[in-house]
């Protein structure tokens, strides 16, 4: 009865709708029919009937590297243009008490870690979880940012979406999950969502045409082919660590200081062969996985995560092979050995439940202003013990084994939250271990800019003699005045452990005076315990030096965060 285009649109409309929405549509169509008039007037009247005042919209964002924030800001501008009253806030700044006053509420949120919320969204989520259902006044829509190369695509968005629903709020527009090339999908979705609210636009028409989803091509992210120029272990003999400084050449590569390089590591050949031999499957057999077809060999080598499977995958494996398997993380090879598959066909079903290899990020330690067409990274070879044997991290193991002129693919993961300030501003950088990486980039950039602002670096590691990453470069920067101050903490050179935060404390007065005169403070490296100890130390310094109470000190830090003068890139 309907033309194909219309039918598709209608079906999408219906299938993407919640129960409430269906009820609403039902009523809406009934209304249209009852007046016997055009959709236009019906829409107008209905909207008018339900919401005579101009639409009030709150857009909140949860971000780690700034994508969600940037996007939310642009969306807010679009809404304003259309006469919508918009309020924009980060989820970490958002006053949860205001939730009861909201009417339309759009959440733009990215996913971090292994399907986790961004740190900035955690407080909001936990608050909402504690609440009783009863947010029926709240009309929400979620725009989820993610990366389909991760196993749990846009999981944080999904979680917020379902939590809001659970708490009684009403979804006024379907969730949109966006991949790394989110711009088009996101704006299209937003225009649609907006038009579902405003009287001015023709909602049905818009929905019907809905061109973005079919017309706009997926650009994906830009993949670069890098060639290793050099790779050197920065740690000296006798160190407990191996940290590789890898210089990669990549024609035309574009990034800014603060960005990270992303790699999807390949599985080692021996592992793939072992899986194949245990499975009895034909390596050349073409198999479809997540909508793309390739040989099994290729899939196993480049796409699937075979090591240290998460519990959720182990559970699914148990279902397929129909055996009792304890739900703990374990490698596919071990699973296949202990709980073998029946035959090649069953193995193909295992392939379906395997997850893609997640990309790994490495803070870029170079600056284009100093090294055009190059990107440098600082990779700590991850080492761990399993059953008394030494194992190495998949990606860091892979990267650190790369020899000169070997090639591999990577992409740039921008971090808009971790940017240098204007050249005349002062900068304090706290980066122990591989946390030094972005600061090598910062210093190279500030050097090239001939920035007049002062630079102060805190670095730390285990031993002065073996673990002083980039020592000679830092010495040069100190001698040429690019580095105004540098303090180091080597934890294991003396009986008592000395860390960067101890060095900060020893310089408390000076550090506070830098902050008071507008310095930007950056922290990079281990999230735990380093970044937490550093923050506690900052609180102490601000309170002691500034003569502030604990609360006032916390406010001060909060104010630094809000003014983007206290930035973290921790992992």
């Amino acid at each position: 009865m309907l033309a194909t285009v219309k039918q598709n649109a209608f079906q999408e409309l219906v299938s993407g709708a919640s129960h409430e929405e269906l009820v609403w549509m039902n009523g809406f169509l009934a209304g249209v029919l009852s007046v016997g008039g055009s959709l236009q007037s019906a829409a107008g009247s209905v909207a008018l009937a339900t919401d005579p005042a101009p639409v009030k919209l709150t857009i909140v964002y949860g971000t780690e590297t700034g994508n969600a924030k940037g996007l939310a800001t642009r969306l807010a501008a679009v809404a304003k243009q259309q006469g919508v009253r918009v309020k924009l806030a980060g989820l970490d700044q958002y006053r949860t008490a205001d939730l009861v006053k909201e009417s339309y509420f759009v959440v733009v949120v990215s996913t971090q870690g292994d399907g986790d919320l961004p740190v900035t969204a955690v407080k909001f989520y936990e608050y909402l979880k504690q609440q009783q259902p009863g947010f029926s006044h709240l009309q929400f829509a979620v725009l989820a940012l993610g990366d389909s190369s991760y196993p749990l695509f846009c999981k944080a968005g999904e979680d917020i979406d379902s939590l809001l629903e659970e708490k009684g709020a009403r979804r006024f527009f379907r969730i949109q999950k966006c991949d790394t090339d989110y711009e088009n999908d996101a704006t299209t979705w937003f225009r649609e969502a907006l038009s579902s609210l405003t009287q001015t636009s023709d909602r049905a028409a818009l929905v019907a045409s809905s061109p973005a989803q079919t017309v706009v091509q997926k650009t994906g992210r830009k993949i670069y082919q890098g060639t290793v120029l050099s790779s050197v272990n920065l740690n000296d003999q006798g160190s407990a660590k191996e940290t590789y400084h890898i210089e990669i050449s990549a024609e035309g590569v574009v990034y800014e200081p603060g960005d990270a390089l992303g790699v999807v590591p390949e599985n080692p050949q021996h592992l793939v062969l072992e899986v194949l031999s245990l499975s009895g499957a034909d390596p050349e057999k073409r198999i479809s996985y997540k909508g793309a077809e390739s040989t099994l060999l290729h899939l196993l080598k480049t796409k699937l995560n075979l090591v240290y499977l998460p519990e959720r995958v182990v559970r699914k494996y148990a279902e397929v092979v129909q055996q009792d398997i304890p739900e703990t993380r374990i490698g596919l090879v071990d699973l296949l050995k202990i709980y073998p598959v029946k035959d090649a066909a069953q193995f193909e079903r295992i392939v379906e439940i395997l997850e893609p290899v997640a990309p790994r990020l490495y803070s870029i330690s170079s600056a284009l202003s100093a090294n055009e067409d190059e990107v440098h990274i600082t990779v700590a070879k991850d080492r761990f013990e399993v059953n008394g044997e030494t194992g190495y991290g998949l990606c860091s193991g892979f990267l650190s084994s790369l020899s000169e002129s070997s090639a591999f693919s990577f992409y740039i993961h921008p971090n808009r939250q971790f940017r240098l300030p204007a050249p005349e501003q002062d900068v304090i950088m706290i980066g122990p271990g591989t946390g030094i990486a972005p600061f090598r980039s910062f210093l190279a950039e500030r050097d090239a800019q001939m920035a007049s602002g002062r630079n102060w670096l805190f670095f730390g590691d285990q031993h002065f003699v073996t673990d002083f990453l980039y020592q000679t470069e830092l010495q040069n920067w100190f001698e040429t005045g690019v580095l105004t101050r540098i303090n180091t903490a080597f934890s294991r050179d003396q009986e008592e452990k000395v860390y960067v935060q101890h060095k900060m404390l020893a310089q408390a007065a000076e550090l506070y005076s830098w902050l008071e005169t507008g310095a930007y403070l950056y922290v990079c490296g281990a999230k735990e315990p380093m970044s937490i100890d550093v923050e506690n130390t900052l609180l102490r310094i601000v309170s002691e030096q500034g003569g502030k109470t604990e609360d006032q000190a916390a406010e001060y830090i909060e104010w630094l965060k809000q003014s983007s003068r206290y930035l973290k890139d921790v992992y």
Partner: protein
Amino acid sequence: MSDNKNLSAVEGIKQKSKGLRGTIQESLRNEITGSISEDDQSLIKFHGMYQQDDRDRRDERAAKKLDRLYSFMIRLRLPGGFLTPEQWVALHHIAGDYSTGVIKITTRQTVQLHGLIKSKIKPTIQAFNSAQLDSIATCGDVNRNVACASHPKQSPVHEQVFAYADKISTLLKPKTRAYYEIWLDEEKISERSEEDPLYQDRYLPRKFKIGIAIPPNNDSDVFTNDLGLIAIIEDGVLQGFNIAIGGGLGTTHGNQDTYPRLGTVIGFTDTEEKVLKMVYEVLTVQRDYGNRSDRKLSRLKYTVDKYGADWFRAEVEKRTGFKLEAPKPYTFTQREDYYGWEENHEGLWYYTLFVENGRVLDTDDLPMKQALLDIAQTGKANFRFTSNQNLILSDIKKKDKKKIQEILDRAGLIRHTETASRIRKNAMACVALNTCPLALAEGQRYLPDLISRIEPILEKHGLSDEQIITRMTGCPNGCARPYAAEIGFIGTAYGRYNLYLGGDRYGERLNKLYKESLDEPAILGELDTLFGEFKHGRHAGEPFGDFAVRKNWI
């Protein structure tokens, strides 16, 4: 006085050092380098330390963007080379805790530890201090560690002579308290209160070395010192000392103005008061007349040659207010250590242990360091060091000898000392690579191998029992006194050595250059020929060095 128009840079550093303090404290606080400032590197020597870096690791560390592997070598002030067992135990642990662990006995009877990183200097010095040990003035332009004949069996008056080493060392110690302030956190007293009439604020133009010998053994190589004291003993009574001035060995490749020189005996004096006064005024004359513009020409030997030994004696006599007597006769008939067990006149026992190139460490086949610790822990033996880089377990009561013997035996040290060839036991090498910044070639890391290749040649010629003194250094500075050897190897470049011949057996005649820049095959080839000629052409009992002179090889 001396002609010093253009003072060398070090002179300026000393003068503005505020009593050897310089900016050492600031340098220690610098967190981004393991080194200290250049000026402080000159000053820290006066505190007994040298900044070094591991030369083997330079390139690799540079590639790793790491600074050079800087560390410090510390040298103890041990006049006459003596430690109590408690002190050895302390030294053992300090070496293990803060340095490479190797205890290095030097050619001047003291010990050095290598590889201390900057942050470990203070704990090291503090630990030494707790053991009543210090490193004051073991380096720098001051009087250095006083060397002395090492073996108490040499003479009943050994102890009396030995005491001079300590007295001279104390007399000539700089007066500044900088060492105590910087390293031992002593509170600073006013800088001006440390008047130092001897060193003033200029110190000496250069290092100054004093050695004491008890004839007939010249183990302390008395003539290679700036100032040598030769004990004159008649009828078992110490009469006084002959005084020799102007010894010194260091030369510089390509600098014709530099040369090794043996001391000139200028006279004799008797009482302790007079001896100390003489010694003191020799230093003041050198202080006032030594060359302060060219450090290559500033040792006492050049001052003596510039003004003449007679002038020098007269100037010293003027300052002491008394005259030296004519030198007394003496004879040296030995320079070798007394390996193995020896008893002194009081019935105390001594075991001289062969320590190849003075390196005390544990290896799989020879747990020397552990055995020495075990011995020290019995508290039954003192430790003495010889100028030939060996160690004497000393002053052992007869009843304790068995216990010490057992420990030595168990560790294989008796066998080690007894079975080492004669040529090996009479050989010395300096430190050289990898720590000595001046080394051009290997020293102690290479000589043992070379000796292993020379041994079969000697054996071939039936000369295995021959006492031939062989010494090697990695550069012409002469730290293992190669110019006073029968066979001297002096490094010119990596793997290449100048071969010197013709020194006498007792350290009274310098050798001379025989062939230049030989590599190992050339060295072995030359020695094969020379030994062959020696075997067939020597007079009965004629030492190798004397034969070389008679044959005009040089």
